[in-house]
């Protein structure tokens, strides 16, 4: 089959590789019909995710048709149309029983490596480094899906791929970002990063009853997407974000803030950006946490900081004094996608939301390298790329 392989920093190649096979009884093989490039794939592309190896197949947002099932998979049949959550989860450990699927205790064969860096290991993830399992990803024609009796979610034929594909990651991720804000009604929520996850966070915050949502980015076209989802917007290259947010909230600050940016943030002040960029290049610091720092400073006293942006290691200059002295709550997590599949699928079916609004580009799998380039460099107003084999 053909698959998009990581061949080093800023280098993706579509290569011919062997077809996947059943390795465990609970596996299924899925023929990919649609897959997408995620913002978090760009961290790999930029070389910031440790334990990648040349040749690793990328991609964790994919859906398709079941073409083979292992003997231990009772609930799927060949021909079923499924979306597949990006975290791999066994369904049986304590974490899974508590619906915390992205911290499944059994799905990372390389847990020992993750433990060294993080203390304990999270779940394995498709196409996302060896520290997170060494699983081949889904930017390919076929993919092997472990624990296929737990992850894949059957979708009906009258919904298009583009409507349901983002259930695999970014829609639930944005939704969980909003959910962690503990919205009860009437809140003002600020979202850093108006990329697709930020756009879904904006839409989800409204679905959950927020009064106002403010999106922060530097790309006008992305802010336009956020406005389509109902947000007020701030371009941090034009305004002082902290000042603007104080102004917009009667001096209180937003009730909760969402970091939908992660480790490769930019800073309006060149010198600050250069400081963290330099440390990151020297591997003195893995992440550039500008958005997170600013979000912490912006949130109101007693507010909640919800982090769904991806980080790869240690951060510097973390304003812990603000967290303790102002009684802030930090909530974070890779999305427990499985938990949200049914409720969000129902919302799509009801017509509450049509996630395909984020798509800006439709490309072929063979164009994946070009896709990564324009997505990273924000060329051609690139917002979200869907690939078909």
């Amino acid at each position, binding site marked *: 089959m053909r698959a998009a392989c990581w061949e080093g920093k800023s280098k993706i190649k579509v290569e011919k590789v062997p077809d996947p096979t059943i390795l465990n*009884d609970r596996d299924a093989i899925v023929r990919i019909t649609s897959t997408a490039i995620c913002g978090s794939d760009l961290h790999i592309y930029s070389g910031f995710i440790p334990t990648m190896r040349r040749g690793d197949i990328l991609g964790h947002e994919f859906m398709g048709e079941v073409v083979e099932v292992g003997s*231990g998979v009772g609930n799927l049949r060949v021909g079923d149309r499924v979306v597949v959550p990006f975290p791999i989860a066994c369904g049986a450990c304590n974490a899974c029983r508590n619906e915390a699927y992205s911290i499944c205790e059994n799905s990372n064969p390389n847990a*020992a490596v993750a433990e060294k860096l993080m203390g304990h290991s999270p779940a394995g993830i498709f196409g996302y480094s060896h520290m997170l399992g060494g699983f081949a990803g889904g930017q390919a024609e076929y993919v092997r899906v472990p624990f296929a009796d737990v992850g894949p979610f059957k979708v009906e034929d009258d919904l298009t791929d583009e409507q349901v594909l983002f259930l695999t990651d970014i829609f639930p991720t944005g939704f969980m970002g909003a959910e962690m804000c503990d919205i009860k009604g009437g809140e003002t929520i600020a979202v850093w990063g108006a990329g697709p996850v930020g756009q879904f966070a904006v839409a989800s915050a409204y679905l959950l009853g927020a009064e106002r949502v403010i999106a922060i980015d530097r790309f006008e076209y992305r802010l336009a997407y956020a406005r389509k989802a109902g947000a007020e917007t701030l371009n941090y290259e034009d305004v002082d974000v902290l000042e603007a947010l104080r102004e917009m909230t009667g001096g209180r600050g937003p009730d909760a803030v969402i970091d939908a940016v992660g480790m490769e943030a930019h800073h309006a002040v060149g010198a600050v950006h250069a400081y963290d960029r330099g440390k990151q290049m020297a591997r003195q610091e893995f992440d550039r946490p500008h958005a997170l720092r600013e979000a912490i400073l912006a949130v109101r006293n007693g507010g909640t900081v919800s982090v769904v942006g991806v980080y790869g290691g240690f951060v510097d200059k973390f304003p812990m004094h603000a967290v303790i002295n102002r009684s802030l709550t930090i909530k974070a997590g890779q999305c427990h996608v499985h938990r949200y599949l049914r409720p969000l699928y129902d919302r799509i079916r009801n017509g509450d939301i049509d996630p395909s609004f984020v798509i800006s580009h439709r490309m072929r799998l063979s164009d994946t390298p070009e896709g990564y380039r324009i997505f990273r460099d924000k060329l051609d107003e690139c917002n979200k790329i869907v690939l078909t084999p």
Partner: protein
Amino acid sequence: MSRSPDSRGAPRLARALGVASLGLGAAQLAMPRRVAKAAGVDDSPAAHPVILAVGARELLHAAGLLGSKKRRGTWATTRVLGDAMDLAVLGVALRGRSGARRRRTTLATAAVAGITALDVVATVKERRAGRVAGGPQSFAATITVNKPRQEVYRFWRQLSNLPSFMTHLESVEATGAGRSRWTATGPAGKKVTWDAEVTDDTPGRAIAWRSVPGATAPNSGVVRFADAPGDRGTEVRVELTVEVPGGVVGRAVALLFGENPEQQVRDDLRRFKQVMETGEVLRSDGTPEGTRAGRMLTQNVAQPAGVR
């Protein structure tokens, strides 16, 4: 968690490194320009002072390693830190160089990397020598399994189940009267067999075993089962003791229990949890044989292997 009294050769290695420090430091102070040329950095004005500083540092190390016996572990540790500095400096130097200079810098980097490896070994040996006095090696590891205690106990008690999660074991067969025959695959695929007996069997609580006299690598172990608080399943704790006989043969046999036996016990337990909770040892394209920490550096690429 582990005690590994592997201190043989520690003082010798540390002394040898001390002599090496003396030689290198003297050379760097006496003829910095030749050192710069050898390392391919003679084009940089910064090279001269850096080499002098490193030379002084090396002489300090030599004094430490050759002088005080007590502090040798500390000096070996600071050598590792020094190596890290050198590697960083050479890394920067590599970036800006090409051609013959780059080749020389690469060679110098490789040499320092080799020395770093020796320094790490020396540090570990010195530290272990300082702590433990010898005797059998013991290892322990623990994990929580989300299954009732009796069920977890029963699975383990059926000793023929052990190879399903202890990858170095090929088979365990009951031979009657509380005895069993264990077969393991050792280094270079060589099979090793020994007999063991269950010395304690407290249903639902603990199982202890030991090899019967005559085993090439006498070993014993105990696994204990306890309820995890708040209905979180069962806490499983394994303690393993391996008597390492002397000589080359003993060394090879000890490898049965892995290059890093403690990590192996942890891996075994992780697979045990997977088998108990999910019914299988999860494989990935990078790790097709399932979790095995020792393979981390030599993983397959994350793409299908193409074998059925």
